């Protein structure tokens, strides 16, 4: 949630009972020394002017209570709750905006989001599609753009310093290297995500022919829908060229051309063979294997055995 809020630049409002005293706004001017060991570098001599209550302050409980009463003052974000004490102290010194910048940078380690995408694939049941994760996908692309920008900045910096980008091995070089590797990694994850989904999608066109069931279609993104359409129409035209040979049927020759089926979903009156048959729900029919087959694959009938 924090990561999301940071990337979208939202404000989080949340109250944590453990830090409830820290939510109070101060009325008096109170100064404190910087905590031992947590001094801001280069500013050791300075003291902090408190913007918010601290534990141990006389004013803390009262301010907190006042904050609760006016409740719209409880704006200090949950970020405070999760950050360590030294960050808290520095947040008093530094202005809020700078603090927010800090959080922006501390969102996720490189390639983490892309990996989450891939994990989603891995945790899905084999052969099953999950909903296309638009949100995460775009976030990864955004991260790629950030890497590219920083990579480019470092290149420019090296060129300004008169260094050869190809051969110099300084800190900038290794920074560039890490950005470059992260880009490659993100690319691999994104490609794998699309590739695995495409694999499932084109196996669909062999199983359900041209029409996708509604619940599966909802899970695809636009380009995947196009992909499915193109793939199944390519398959259809290939079968037409082969002299209207249906390649999607079961490859094992049946023992009996007729099978007994039960209808699971109302299909209605359908022309089967040379006459119309009413395929009402729960009715049992004796049908030609080839007629019944695609209904069975689509889950509208089941074969009765024995």
């Amino acid at each position, binding site marked *: 949630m924090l990561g999301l809020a940071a990337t979208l630049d939202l404000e989080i409002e949340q109250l944590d009972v453990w830090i409830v005293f820290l939510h109070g706004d101060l009325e008096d001017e109170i100064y404190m020394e910087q905590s031992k060991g947590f001094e801001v570098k280069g500013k050791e001599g300075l003291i902090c002017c408190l913007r918010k209550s601290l534990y141990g302050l006389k004013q803390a409980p009262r301010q907190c209570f006042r904050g609760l009463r006016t409740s719209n003052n409880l704006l200090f974000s949950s970020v405070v709750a999760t950050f360590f004490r030294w960050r808290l102290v520095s947040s008093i010194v530094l202005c809020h905006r700078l603090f927010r910048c800090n959080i922006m940078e501390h969102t996720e*380690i490189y390639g983490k989001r892309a990996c989450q995408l891939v994990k989603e694939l891995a945790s899905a049941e084999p052969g099953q599609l999950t909903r296309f994760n638009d949100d995460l996908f775009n976030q990864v692309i955004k991260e790629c753009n950030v890497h590219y920008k920083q990579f480019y900045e470092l290149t420019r910096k090296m060129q300004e310093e008169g260094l050869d980008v190809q051969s110099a091995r300084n800190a900038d070089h*290794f920074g560039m*290297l*890490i950005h470059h590797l992260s880009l490659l*990694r993100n690319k691999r994850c994104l490609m794998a995500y699309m590739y695995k989904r495409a694999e499932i999608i084109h196996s*669909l066109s062999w199983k359900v022919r041209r029409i996708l*069931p509604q619940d599966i279609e909802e899970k695809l993104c636009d380009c995947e829908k196009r992909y499915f359409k193109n793939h199944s129409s390519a398959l259809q035209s290939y079968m037409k060229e082969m002299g209207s040979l249906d390649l999607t049927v*079961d490859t*094992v020759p049946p023992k009996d051309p007729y099978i007994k089926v039960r209808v699971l979903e109302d299909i209605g009156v359908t022309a089967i063979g040379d006459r119309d048959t009413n395929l009402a729900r729960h009715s049992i029919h004796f049908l030609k294997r080839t007629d019944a087959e695609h209904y069975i*694959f689509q889950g509208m009938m089941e074969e009765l055995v024995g």
Partner: protein
Amino acid sequence: MPHYYDIDDILTEEELMPVVFQKAATGVGLLDPSSETNNIEQGAKVELPFWLAAELQRRQAAMMSIPPCFNQTTRKEIQADAGSVDLRSRCPYFYELGSKIALVVGDQTIGSFLLYAFMNRYKEVLSKSHTAAFAATTKPLILLTKEETHLYEAAHSSISAFKKWRMGGSRYETSSFIGRKRKPVE
């Protein structure tokens, strides 16, 4: 060489490795949570995913050490009773990661250790999966790594296919991706 799109390979490479930076790097302070600037200093100790750590090691920008799932404690536990060690929580891609690390770090002992662990655990995986009544019996599964889980499922599906063949059954079935009565994941 695994496939470029291999999901398991990608996830294997996401495992974190302890790394010591030999060179400084600018603009990547995010990798080191203790760094106050946006840079990484020489000698910084951080945990990086394998894909990054291995490349940095190859270019001698960082030194990678062996992650905790291959340390002495784990080795001793495996020697004591391989079948009951919970490898999944330590590293779900134990074998794959192990064979990758062995190449990069140059530790000779990892290979034989992996082989020993696998041989001793395989026996149990197979016998448990053949006797389990349902594939979803979770008790043995929670200890297994990803690869062992695949083995377990393969063994289980082969035994259930065998049973089905013996008893006879319907040849046509609803396509596996239809008819799942599960709520869509939001």
